[in-house]
């Protein structure tokens, strides 16, 4: 999965289990500040209500779509908040408090029925589109219906069809109902109420309601595949122009309801998004003030990174933030002799975490050494270290040998390690771990595979894994939403194991873990649920099916021309919805 391009892999054909969405988490934001290295991680840099100016974004790629119903890119979900309001959204504050879900179009978070199968949202009254017409719950329903039309809008996540009671709904374009609102699992008793009927309880549903697919779309304005050229705005900005793959421009939306929207500001006059710009040029443009934001939000390139870190005047405008990814190695629990937990633990102990970190670029470009599956920016994260990853980062050879002895393989064993051959960092990691494991007699043969088919044809196909003794496989993960379900379910839950496209590559099917997921999905109390995520994390680490490598980080450059800048914990990049521009000359 590639958070730098998309949000998580999470939903596939697996049955959706239960989980309770988390709010809160993390501490309050620190006092506002002006500048300084990492100043934008826990505080708002240059808070200001000054208006005017144009904020220029550069993007080295192009959006998958600007249509809220057709995008899976993290940076687009961030950009979308400028022109689209979903039922609920993430709080616009720095620190882990940004993971908190708060009402957006809705008056409150979802009201769940006693049996956990019905979620109700009431819309704030008189929310307008850019043309002055009123947003209705039917428009939200229509937007949700569009997520079913995969033949026309293929890119977005598929959670609604997985969770709601009528998964075979064909989408509004093939809907026989005259008003195209034939999705029976979503009802609208009146124009300000929308009710979702779930096939099974799913207490993380507020996170699903925060997806851009709940941004309302008026049916009479829907142009299907062409809607991306001018989505109807409910946010502070609206589309002025869009030259596909080149540039789009947002200007102020006069019908935005500021009083109902504490998570966005309308400060700059205009946002310009220049697409398909050379990545090194973007860094130079940022440093030389020809651009304000790197839209991708994945950090600067190697050349600029060296410049920034060596120059105090540049470094004070940089933030080394968590990118949301965990780089990891799957340890398969079915491939012999790794079907013995002690052999898996031997791998955990013997691995060289410093080498792992170095392979991904070191502490700044790569990230921090990891000891858990949950990453520090997630709701429910609790720090622990079962295998001395942080205290003995080069590996604990003595403990590894002890585990091998208990496993009955005191002289070590042989296995194969899969990695994506077109990813130099994974290849470097594989080579480094091959050397590290050889210290305790574990002989690893490296097997490279193309990344495009890694999950669909090789590492994600259990039969192939078993037949080819792929005991170890390198990968990465970032969740679609920032809690234990988003991070852990598809990596570790038994029901998530699939014949192809499998992401539970460790093939953990532990009754303990599965029951904890079931319990979490039925737990409505947020803090209790967060405890369960940590319990699952501990159990997974105890089972040693995942070797955490690094909590990924990236070096972001914070333009000194911007106001209200901070790294949003959920998007893992600067928060775009409240940015402003410093007045010229100030």
């Amino acid at each position, binding site marked *: *999965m590639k958070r730098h391009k*998309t*949000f998580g*892999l*999470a*939903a*596939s*054909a697996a049955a959706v289990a239960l989980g309770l969405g988390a709010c809160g988490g993390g501490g309050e934001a620190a006092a506002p500040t002006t500048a300084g290295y990492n100043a934008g991680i826990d505080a708002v840099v240059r808070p200001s209500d000054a208006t005017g100016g144009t904020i220029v974004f550069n993007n080295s790629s*192009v959006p*998958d*779509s600007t249509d809220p119903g057709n995008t*899976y890119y993290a940076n687009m979900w961030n950009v979308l908040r400028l022109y689209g309001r979903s039922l609920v959204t993430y709080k616009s504050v720095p620190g882990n408090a940004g993971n908190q879900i708060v009402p957006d179009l809705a008056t409150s978070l979802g009201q769940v029925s006693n049996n956990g199968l019905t979620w109700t949202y009431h819309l704030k009254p008189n929310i307008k589109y850019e043309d002055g017409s009123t947003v209705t719950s039917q428009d939200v329903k229509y937007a949700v219906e569009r997520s079913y*039309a*995969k*033949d*026309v*809008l*293929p*890119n*977005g*996540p*598929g959670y609604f*069809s997985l969770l709601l009671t009528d998964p075979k709904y064909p989408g509004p*374009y093939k809907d026989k109902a005259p008003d195209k609102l034939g999705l029976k699992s979503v009802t609208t008793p009146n124009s300000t109420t929308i009710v979702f009927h779930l096939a099974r309880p799913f207490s993380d549903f507020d996170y699903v309601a925060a997806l851009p697919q709940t941004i309302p779309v008026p049916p009479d304005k*829907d*142009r*299907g*595949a*062409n*809607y*991306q050229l001018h989505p109807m705005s409910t946010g502070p900005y609206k589309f002025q122009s869009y*030259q*596909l*793959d*080149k540039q789009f421009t947002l200007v102020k939306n006069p019908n935005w309801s500021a009083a109902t929207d504490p998570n966005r500001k309308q400060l700059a006059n205009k946002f310009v998004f*220049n697409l*398909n*710009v*050379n990545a*090194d*040029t973007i860094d*130079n*443009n940022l*440093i*030389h003030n*020809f651009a304000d934001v790197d839209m991708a939000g994945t950090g600067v390139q190697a050349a600029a990174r060296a410049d920034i870190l060596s120059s105090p005047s540049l470094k004070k405008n940089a933030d080394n933030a968590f990118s949301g990814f965990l780089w990891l190695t799957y340890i398969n629990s079915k491939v012999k002799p790794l079907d013995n937990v002690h052999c898996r633990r031997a791998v955990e102990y013997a691995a060289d975490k410093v080498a792992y970190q170095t392979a991904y670029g070191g502490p700044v470009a790569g990230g921090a050494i990891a000891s858990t599956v949950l990453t520090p920016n997630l709701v429910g994260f609790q720090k622990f270290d079962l295998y001395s990853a942080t205290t003995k980062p080069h590996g604990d050879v003595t403990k590894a040998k002890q585990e091998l002895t208990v496993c009955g393989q005191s002289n070590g064993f042989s296995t194969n390690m899969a990695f994506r051959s077109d990813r130099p960092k994974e290849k470097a990691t594989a080579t480094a771990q091959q050397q590290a494991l050889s210290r305790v007699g574990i002989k690893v043969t490296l097997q490279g595979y193309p990344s*495009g088919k890694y999950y*669909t044809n090789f590492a994600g196909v259990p039969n192939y894994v078993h037949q080819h003794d792929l005991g170890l496989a390198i990968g990465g993960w970032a969740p679609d939403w920032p809690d234990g379900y988003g991070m852990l379910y598809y990596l570790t839950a038994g029901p998530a194991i699939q014949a192809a*496209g499998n992401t539970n590559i460790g093939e953990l099917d532990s009754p303990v873990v599965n029951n904890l997921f079931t319990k979490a999905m039925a737990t409505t109390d947020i803090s209790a649920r967060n405890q369960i995520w940590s319990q699952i994390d501990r159990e997974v680490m105890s089972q040693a099916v995942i070797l955490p490598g690094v909590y990924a980080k990236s070096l972001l450059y914070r333009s000194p021309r911007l106001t209200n800048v901070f790294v949003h914990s959920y998007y893992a990049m600067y928060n775009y919805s409240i940015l402003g521009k410093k007045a010229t000359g100030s």
Partner: protein
Amino acid sequence: MIAFIVRRLIVTVFLLLVVSLITFAIFFLIPLLAGQNSYELASQYVGRNPSPAAVHAIERKLGFDQPLTVQYGRFVRGIVMGAHYDAGPDKTYCPPPCFGYSFRNQQPVWPMLMSNVPVTASLAFGAAVLWLVAGTAIGVLSALRRGTVFDRAAMGVALAGVSLPIFFTGLIALQLFSYRWPIFPDLKFVPFTENPLLWARNLVLPWTTLAFLYAALYARLTRAGMLETMGEDYIRTARAKGLPERKVIVKHGLRAALTPIVTIFGMDLGLLLGGAVLTEFTFSLHGLGLFTILAIQNNDLPEILGVVMLTAFFVVIANLIVDILYAVIDPRVRP
């Protein structure tokens, strides 16, 4: 002459058909031989973690479930007669020449291609003027001053120009003249019709970078041609007749040496009009080159087909113009 042009245009149509057929085959047949099926092909255009139903829907929508002959026939028919496309709420008509719809963003390819042409044309023609003038002038002077310091220096620089890749010289140019000494800051393409001065100012660096490479080639070619021509008997005869040296050089020497230059110029310009990939990438110019990169990155057949056919068209037309120019330059080939 008109019959000649008509004949060439008919050949052009056949050539484009062959090019499209080869591109189509490369896109479909090679993956097929490597074991890819239409479901796997469709899964590339369904976003992340699609359900099988979603993949099948896209498979049907993009026509991958049809035989290749049907798919190719539909493509060719679209160019001639246009095509209808299911964009969701209604059918969208793509008028001829409809090069199909992008698999990636479900937009008709032809308007996207055309929107990139002004950028590439601005880059290619501007650079062509520069390299043609500079390259031939340096080549002529080097030939006339063979063995001098100027000749050695010019050929040394030419060697560097040919050897250094554009993504290197372009980045150096950007770093020096756009960032360190911001003589050309904040480069972006501005249409000529919008602001001719800004158009030129923002293209000076790309033109120069591109022309540096080609001028080097042309200088060496011209020098070689001139050295050969100036040793011919008819040059000696012209001088013996008492013609002024300038006339001998320009009318008799350069004119003959220009024939191969014009040939290669036609090829180069035609290819560049299909996209100066490295220059456009380095300077973030949204021309056909950058379009091509995006199309290949996304494995987007209609976009790839479109740009390949447009490039082939430009090359063929440029060669046709060159053939016509031969008649002007060289009286021996006049009909």
